[in-house]
């Protein structure tokens, strides 16, 4: 897994690429938490365009960050899901709590 993070206004845009499983979960969680600890980001957008695989360990990291952000009143959006990844997120119920958009720009506009 490679991880690209960018702050746009008060939103952290996260663009992982590769496979989100147990093998990378710790590193994924740590990088996100360190970035959020710096306190510049109120909202979060996961751009999943280049994520080809997610299992429940990967989902755990997404959901944990969702809880952290929404506790502080921020919004969490998820964009550009590949079909096999959407299936797993859908089954987990995650898509009922995180809003899904087609593109990063659409999500950023929504956040305003």
């Amino acid at each position: 897994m490679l991880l690209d993070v960018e702050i746009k206004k008060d939103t952290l845009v996260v663009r992982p690429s590769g496979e989100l499983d147990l093998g990378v979960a710790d590193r994924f969680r740590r990088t996100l938490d360190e970035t959020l600890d710096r306190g510049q980001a109120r909202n979060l957008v996961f751009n999943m365009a280049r994520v080809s695989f997610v299992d429940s360990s990967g989902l755990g990291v997404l959901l944990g960050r969702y809880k952290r952000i929404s506790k502080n009143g921020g919004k969490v959006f998820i964009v550009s899901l590949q079909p096999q990844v959407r299936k797993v997120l859908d089954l987990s119920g995650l898509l009922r709590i995180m809003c899904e958009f087609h593109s990063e720009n659409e999500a950023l506009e929504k956040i305003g």
Partner: protein
Amino acid sequence: MQFINHMKLEFLSIPANVAFARVTVAAFASQLDFTLADLEEIKVAVSEAVGNSIIHGYESIPDRFVRIYANLTTDALEIRIEDDGKGIEDINKALQPAFSTDAERLGLGFVFMQSFMENFRVESSPGQGTKVIMSKSIGTRIARASSDQ
């Protein structure tokens, strides 16, 4: 039921091997005419079972072994994923959606295995390790679609 292929894979209980295990099982399964969507579902199920052996069975001790047995029949993949770890006290409880003995985890591993595979079964008792047995046949989608009518 005719067996057309067998394999056995054994590897160390380290997180990096979750990806190795799912790629290997998918490469084996691809000798049958599974769709790409089926292969992705098999990968998720294998990741969940192997991840559970590593985290729960062996409590993240990295020098133990996880074993996978896989058979192909003319129309199905059968797999058994085993560890010699601490075992499960109450299997019915463990199978409940959102149940986890680890507060950091979602309790969805068994849900994914049951949703994506067929003939799912767990054999486990405390101190005796855990075996997860499951299968998937090609063309399930068609069978499901026609049974909907």
